[in-house]
């Protein structure tokens, strides 16, 4: 089966719709997150894993590709973009599936094999797999699917039929994993997985049902207040109790244990009303509450969630990688694709691990989340007095770009000049915005990674848009209308253009070479295109003209953005207009630090 471009478009839309559906439940899933650590980011990690894949998928415009091949590449991208335990396990599962359906056999039999392989990959990739987690739901899914396919050949119908069954399994996860029972919730990863299946089913039948749940700090507050209430002397109950009835809607609470406790409290109140102050189960309720609070506020054995992608020629197996990682760490997941390793680990020594691992290859990306801090944020009752419902927040390197973006409609622009902001600064900035929802983006991949970590520490609902250059941000801000609907911004997340073309002109601080091996002397100007040094010259104008000659396509507009070091350079537009008749040229001040000029090419 060969796919033409329109079908790729269709698949993108379908995956985008499933992502949108999951995105709508992000906060709900976050608030169920108690295992392996209650850091409230399962929903965020699952959505960022898929979002990263959507953003990094190659543009297959005009190139034939089969659906199986496309999905295979998508699963690879999920692995590379995966975040957190749940994100990595989900990516592993999808990789396992696409290993089987990559050959484009979508029959029920083959899909069953795919689900089986997906589960196998996810299970084997998890260092210490536990029952009652997303793995259990994945297992039950393939079992139920296998059972149903004996009677029904339509795979999509069978996926739909699996969902109610999986919900009953999800309800039983607290019986399988004690920490869930103690916390009064079902497994967050498992819930996220079922929501994904629902998203797929919704693509089939187009129904919608967005669920919300009670904020977690509210649950802790309720438990503490109930304990306070139960600590009152028995003799005083008689005066407090008349007229008292605890009425919290259990469907809002979404916490089975707390629901049971509240039922007990009502029994207690009735008992006092009827029998005076005698209620034998009072101590039991108090202990129950204490136990529940302890689960949500644990002592952290490992404080940091470390993730990295390493390209290595020195390591050939996952076991070799495992051998060099800290043995006191836990939640270890190691993935390997060709010479690239993706590692997720919980540890107290992220710096040591990174230093050790760096001896074996080159990092493509690293990320360290402080789970203790995330947890503090998750359980804290701190509130921000939101002053606005939504805002667009951009991080850029230059003051010129800041002015351009503000003028185009960005609400807040942070200019980091030459110094990339830390996660701590980003959290401070996000909180300073006092906005309930924030659309956040940055012109640099490292800052984007830091933003993702900061998002889990912010009190606002942060939606990160995967841009990695300032032109993508300009494009984004230009595409946001004044009256955009914050509940439907997943389109923005998904539909970022991939064909933004630009190059940078920088100056060599030491002798080096171009990608082709030509020498670049210290002080020369050189052109960087797609992270490669293309050519160099002493004269910046020569490099600019050479760059335009090389990279111009069918473009009608070429825009130069001067960096801070080129602010006072003479205007070369007239020379360019003479050299390239028929092309429009514009020049602005961008104020970027690293590049003397950015040259942007537009159709």
């Amino acid at each position: 089966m060969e796919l033409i471009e329109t079908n790729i478009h269709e698949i993108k839309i379908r995956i985008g719709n499933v992502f949108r559906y999951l995105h709508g439940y992000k906060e709900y899933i976050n608030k169920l997150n108690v295992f392996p650590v209650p850091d409230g980011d399962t929903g965020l990690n699952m959505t960022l894993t898929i979002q990263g894949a959507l953003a990094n998928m190659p543009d297959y415009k005009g190139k034939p590709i089969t659906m199986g091949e496309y999905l295979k590449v998508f699963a690879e991208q999920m692995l590379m973009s995966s975040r957190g335990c749940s994100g990595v396990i989900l990516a592993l599962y999808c990789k396992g599936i696409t290993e089987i359906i990559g050959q484009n056999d979508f029959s029920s039999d083959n899909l069953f094999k795919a689900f089986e392989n997906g589960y196998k990959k996810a299970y084997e990739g998890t260092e210490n797999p536990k029952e009652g987690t997303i793995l259990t739901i994945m297992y039950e899914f393939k079992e139920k699917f296998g059972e149903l396919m004996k009677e029904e050949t339509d795979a999509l119908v069978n996926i739909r039929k699996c969902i109610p069954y999986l919900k009953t399994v999800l309800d039983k996860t607290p019986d399988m994993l004690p920490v869930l029972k103690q916390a009064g919730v079902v497994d967050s990863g498992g819930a996220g997985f079922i929501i994904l299946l629902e998203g797929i089913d919704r693509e089939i039948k187009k129904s919608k049902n967005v669920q919300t749940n009670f904020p977690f700090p509210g649950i802790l507050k309720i438990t503490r207040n109930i304990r306070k209430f139960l600590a009152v002397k028995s003799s005083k109950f008689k005066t407090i109790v008349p007229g008292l009835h605890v009425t919290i809607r259990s469907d809002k609470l979404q916490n089975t244990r707390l629901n049971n406790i509240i039922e007990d409290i009502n029994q207690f109140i009735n008992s006092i009303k009827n029998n005076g102050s005698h209620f034998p189960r009072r101590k039991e309720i108090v202990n129950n509450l204490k136990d529940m609070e302890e689960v949500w506020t644990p002592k952290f054995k490992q404080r940091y969630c470390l993730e990295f992608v390493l390209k290595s020629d020195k390591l050939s197996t996952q076991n070799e990688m495992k051998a060099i990682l800290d043995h006191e760490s836990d939640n270890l997941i190691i993935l390997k694709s060709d010479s690239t390793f993706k590692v997720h680990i919980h540890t107290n020594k992220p710096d040591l691990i990174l230093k050790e691992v760096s001896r074996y290859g080159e990092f493509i990306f690293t990320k360290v989340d402080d789970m203790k801090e995330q947890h503090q944020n998750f359980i804290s009752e701190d509130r921000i007095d939101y002053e606005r419902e939504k805002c667009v927040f951009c991080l850029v390197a230059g003051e010129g770009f800041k002015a351009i973006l503000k003028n185009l409609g960005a609400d807040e622009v942070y200019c980091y000049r030459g110094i990339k902001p830390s996660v701590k600064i980003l959290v401070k900035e996000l909180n300073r915005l006092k906005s309930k929802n924030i659309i956040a983006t940055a012109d640099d991949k490292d800052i984007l990674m830091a933003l993702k970590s900061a998002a889990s520490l912010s009190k606002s609902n942060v939606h990160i848009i995967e841009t990695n250059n300032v032109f993508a941000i300009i494009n984004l801000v230009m595409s946001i209308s004044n009256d955009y609907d914050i509940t439907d911004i997943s389109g923005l997340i998904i539909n970022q253009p991939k064909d933004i073309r630009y190059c940078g002109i920088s100056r060599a601080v030491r002798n080096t070479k171009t990608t082709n091996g030509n020498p670049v002397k210290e002080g020369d100007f050189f052109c960087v295109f797609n992270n490669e040094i293309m050519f160099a010259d002493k004269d910046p104008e020569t490099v600019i003209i050479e760059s335009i000659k090389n990279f111009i396509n069918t473009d009608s507009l070429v825009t130069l953005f001067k960096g801070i070091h080129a602010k006072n350079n003479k205007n070369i537009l007239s020379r360019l207009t003479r050299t390239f008749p028929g092309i429009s040229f514009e020049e602005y001040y961008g104020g970027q630090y690293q590049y003397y000029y950015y040259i942007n090419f537009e159709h």
Partner: protein
Amino acid sequence: MKKEILIITSDNLGLKKEQFDYPSLEIIKCPVYINGKEYRESDHEYTANWLIEKYLKENIVAKSSSILQGDLIDIIEKNKDKYSLVIHVLMSHGVSAATTLVAENVKKIYRDVIPILNIDTRQTSLGIGLVLLKIIEIIKQHDHIDDILRLADEAIRNTYSVFVMHDLNYLFKSGRIGKARALMGSVLRIIPLVGISGEDKEGLVVPIGKARTFMQANDKIIEFIHNKMLEKSVVKVQYIVNSLGYGDNLDAVSDLSNKIKESVPYEKMITGQPHLVEAVYYGPKSYSISINI
């Protein structure tokens, strides 16, 4: 007995008289003022292209006014005994309140002589032409005033126009800018896309988007049409009226035509022809499109 209906409109409708299959149609020419002198469109001399050339060569400021009450009365006087109903198809009240006022005055003056239905298209330029095409279809099939009004309202609610403007100053100076003012004064040069929607009760010109190049602007128009089709759950656009602009931006106009043909299913497409008065608002390199879904 079928009603004999006279339709009156003004010439800021993006289409020429011969493009309407309806003989009882009177098009009032809007006055255009350049340096205090009044001009009305003529077949060969005072055309849209003539004004665009003047804009480019002479740096002039042109203005227009709403239709003159006297012009409207002349037409009604001339025709009141030949017809049993007059339908006056008007530019959006949000764009020109004065036009609505003139039409309502004349309606009052003739209330005992001939019934006049003033239909606010909540459109301007091509959008008026498109609504008029729909009204002609309606009156050919329906005789009852209530049916005509109901179906015309439905047609209006399903009509959208997008204008690609090279320079918003022309719209600003003509006093028609509405909420599109928000697109003015950008540090980065942008090509503003403004629009008017029949669904908008205020009937104002509003910002639709921003682009850096005309090709990007065209992509946004296609996206706009697709979104409207999705909103209205239709797989085909009924009518597209596509303006050629003023002959000074043919690459962009032809790119838009190609993109429409490639990606927008439609029943009918008509090529619009701008009048002198429309050139006043839009200025050089502009072009537009109206759709009825």
